[in-house]
């Protein structure tokens, strides 16, 4: 128990240090590229150098990077991500809305990918070497290799008349009931979620197949077969459970990266999520928004890693250090 606790504490410490490093790097990164928010914001026809300085002062950009960094950390500890340079609104509010739009879309796609991927992988492993296996492997490899934005455009082209071409809701529904609203959101979510699902499906299916093949060759599976257990039972209770170790890791890792990786999908489907928020923040050098967004992405990735470590710990009692 103590060792387990010790391990959890260590992993927590590593996670926190990673987040701290990422915060510091993010802070520095955007300040070394040329141009700042004021260089464009202040260029109104009557602008004077003094005015640009005043704006820099207002944003705190006239202070040294060290002072800005300390101020940023201090505010961060108090839960204050600052205000967007572009629209003057709290970053947490901007990001909260964007993340609130991205997460359900990504989660739906991921859940579909997990279910379909695992089912496909298991089927491929059980039917190893058959036509079914080859067909499933080839199709998994194919969707794995396709770029997400291309798949998105293709789906838009093929299914544009059936599903909405973009956006998150039908704004022209009059006072929809909660049920109507939910259906509407799900309807709009279908295509982008499908693209997320397709891009993840391939890797889940391939990994599941490999992991299942390994476990299916283990002695205990042979023993189970010898005991006369049905294939279904063997797969469900003996093979898949053990194969879940690498799969759970992959799922946790890909969940973290997919949130940040949906920029292109969100652009294709005009989905007002975190990807679009980051894109517009980059183009306007909106440091507080960028720092906030990258902080959120970092935390998501680190937390997913952390959770996968903990799951591992629970799934595999052999892991101690």
């Amino acid at each position: 128990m103590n060792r387990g606790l010790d391990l959890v504490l260590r992993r927590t410490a590593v996670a926190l240090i990673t987040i701290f490093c990422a915060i510091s790097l993010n802070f520095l990164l955007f300040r070394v590229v040329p141009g700042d928010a004021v260089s464009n914001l202040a260029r109104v026809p009557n602008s004077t150098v003094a005015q640009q300085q005043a704006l820099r002062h207002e944003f705190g950009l006239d202070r040294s990077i060290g002072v800005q960094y300390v101020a940023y950390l201090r505010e961060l500890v108090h839960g204050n991500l600052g205000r967007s340079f572009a629209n003057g609104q709290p970053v947490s509010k901007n990001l909260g809305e964007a993340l609130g739009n991205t997460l359900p879309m990504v989660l739906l796609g991921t859940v579909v990918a997990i279910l379909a991927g695992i089912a496909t992988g298991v089927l491929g492993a059980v039917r190893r070497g058959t036509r079914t296996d080859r067909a499933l492997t080839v199709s998994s490899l194919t969707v794995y290799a396709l770029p997400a934005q291309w798949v998105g455009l293709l789906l838009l082209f093929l299914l544009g008349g059936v599903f909405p071409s973009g956006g998150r809701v039908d704004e022209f529904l009059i006072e929809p009931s909660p049920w109507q609203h939910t259906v509407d959101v799900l309807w709009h979510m279908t295509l982008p979620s499908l693209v997320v699902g397709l891009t993840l499906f391939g890797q889940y299916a391939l990994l599941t197949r490999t992991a299942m093949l390994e476990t299916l060759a283990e002695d205990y599976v042979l023993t189970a077969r010898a005991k006369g257990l049905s294939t279904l039972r063997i797969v469900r209770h003996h093979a898949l459970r053990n194969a879940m170790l690498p799969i759970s890791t992959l799922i946790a890792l890909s969940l973290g990266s997919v949130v940040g990786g949906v920029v292109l999908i969100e652009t294709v489907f005009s989905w007002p999520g975190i990807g679009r928020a980051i894109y517009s923040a980059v183009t306007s050098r909106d440091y507080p928004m960028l720092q906030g967004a990258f902080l959120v992405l970092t935390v998501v990735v680190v937390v997913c890693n952390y959770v996968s470590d903990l799951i591992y710990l629970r799934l595999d009692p052999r892991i101690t250090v």
Partner: protein
Amino acid sequence: MLRKMLIVAAVATVAGTTACGASSTGSGGQTLRVGITDSPIDSLNPFVAQYVLPLSVMRNVYPYLVGYKGEQVGPDFASSWETSKDGTTMTFHLHPGAKWSDGQPLTSADAVWTIQTTLKFAKSSTAGLAFLLNGVTSASAPDDHTLVIKLAAPLSTAIAQFAMLPILPQHVYASAAAGDGSGLRRFANSAPVVSGGPFALSEYRKDEFLLLKRNANYYGQRPKVDAVGIRLYSSGDAMVSALRNNEIDQAKVVPATVVDKLKGDGKLRVSKVPSADVFVLGFNSNSAKPEHRELLDPRVRKAIASAINRPQLTATATVGTGTVIDTLLPPSIGGGWTATGVKLPAFDADGAGRQLDALGFKRGADGVRIANGHPMSYKVRFVAGERERQFESIRNDLGRIGVKLEAAPSDASSFVSAVHGPNDKYLDTDLFLNNWMSLYDPTLQLSVLSCGQLANLNDAGYCNKTYDGLLQRQATELDPAKRKAIVDQMQQILNDDLPWIPLYARAILDAHASEWDGFVTSPYTTDFLSTNAFAGVQRSG
């Protein structure tokens, strides 16, 4: 402001959907569903917003003293006005009994508050609007429906300036203007916005959607539609797909590549108008620039201008939809401002080569000419992702006359800093590609190349005292014919010195479902100088 407009001015459409087949708005009434692409909303705060779309929204939401009908300024909230004999006092007669959308009286007091507050914080939080009050010293209200504006001197641009100044509800904004006025910049102006224009902004979701509902308290003629919903697309393909699938009624600024396809669709109508957005190849004109000083010579610039095949460049860069231009004032702004006598040299690559030969710039072993002991090889700065086709076309043309170009792309945020160079000294840059959007009144466009805009809007580092003197003179010349002659002369000076080689004006391409009519086009992606865009739109089918 214009610089941002320019950067942004690209693709636009507005849309909504009825894809679910569920009940849509419009039971009895009409809702126009518009789609717009890549047209961001930086802010709905009039002191902060710089992009075209939010300015257009404000044009439809706030009262303005005067507004454009076509290219001419006409009455709006002021039904008439007169100027005193000495030209320094303007008296506006406002619609009596007007109200804001929340029922509060809309009077001259709101106009006075807006003007005085903007003047008060002109050096800080209201700088974004203050240029519209250039030459204005004060405003007063003898009664609820009369506004008196005092000018420092007669000002020919006054009316054009007021046509862009929104009148803000004092009862909403006053608290933000307390103290040093910094609250004005932070004011969110969240929907529903207290409105006084033809529409009231009733809903806004960032990166998603805007809903303009007809303002029942509007003092002017009511729009025919009940509401306009504007959906923000991030992909032109998705927007076009939405239009074809009846998820939206109008797509604003569709990609040029799909125009022919849309024209073939019997259920759609496509409109094409030249935009006021002018693309230029600029020269760093700072006479102190240390390197490649041959580029300061107007003869070299003329040679380069005649080596560029502008018709072909225009066709390539705009997929055949743009218009070749010769001056920075495009014909699309009307008013006769374009100096018809000012022409760039016609395309003549051989002639250009001979001009450079005559200057003694002979070709080196690699075919690149040598000027003052170094190769005529230059970096061209431009915003990445937008200008590659222009650049390639120009590089090919100039390559033929022995001038080598190298791409120096940067992102939009650092482009201006890169062109101006460290501390806005204009020492590093040779050439750049940029675009500028002219208003109907030419002053702002002409002022970009003035000495006063160095380290600010002036991207060429160009400074010519004669030109600046004329800029001042045209702004105070009240006789239209004389003013036009001055503006012509300014365009001629720029044609002689060539700080910019004007290339082309792109086209604004809109498409809408054929059962709708009454759309009024403008040379802007979304019209921010008049309320015409949606005023007469109605479903005809």
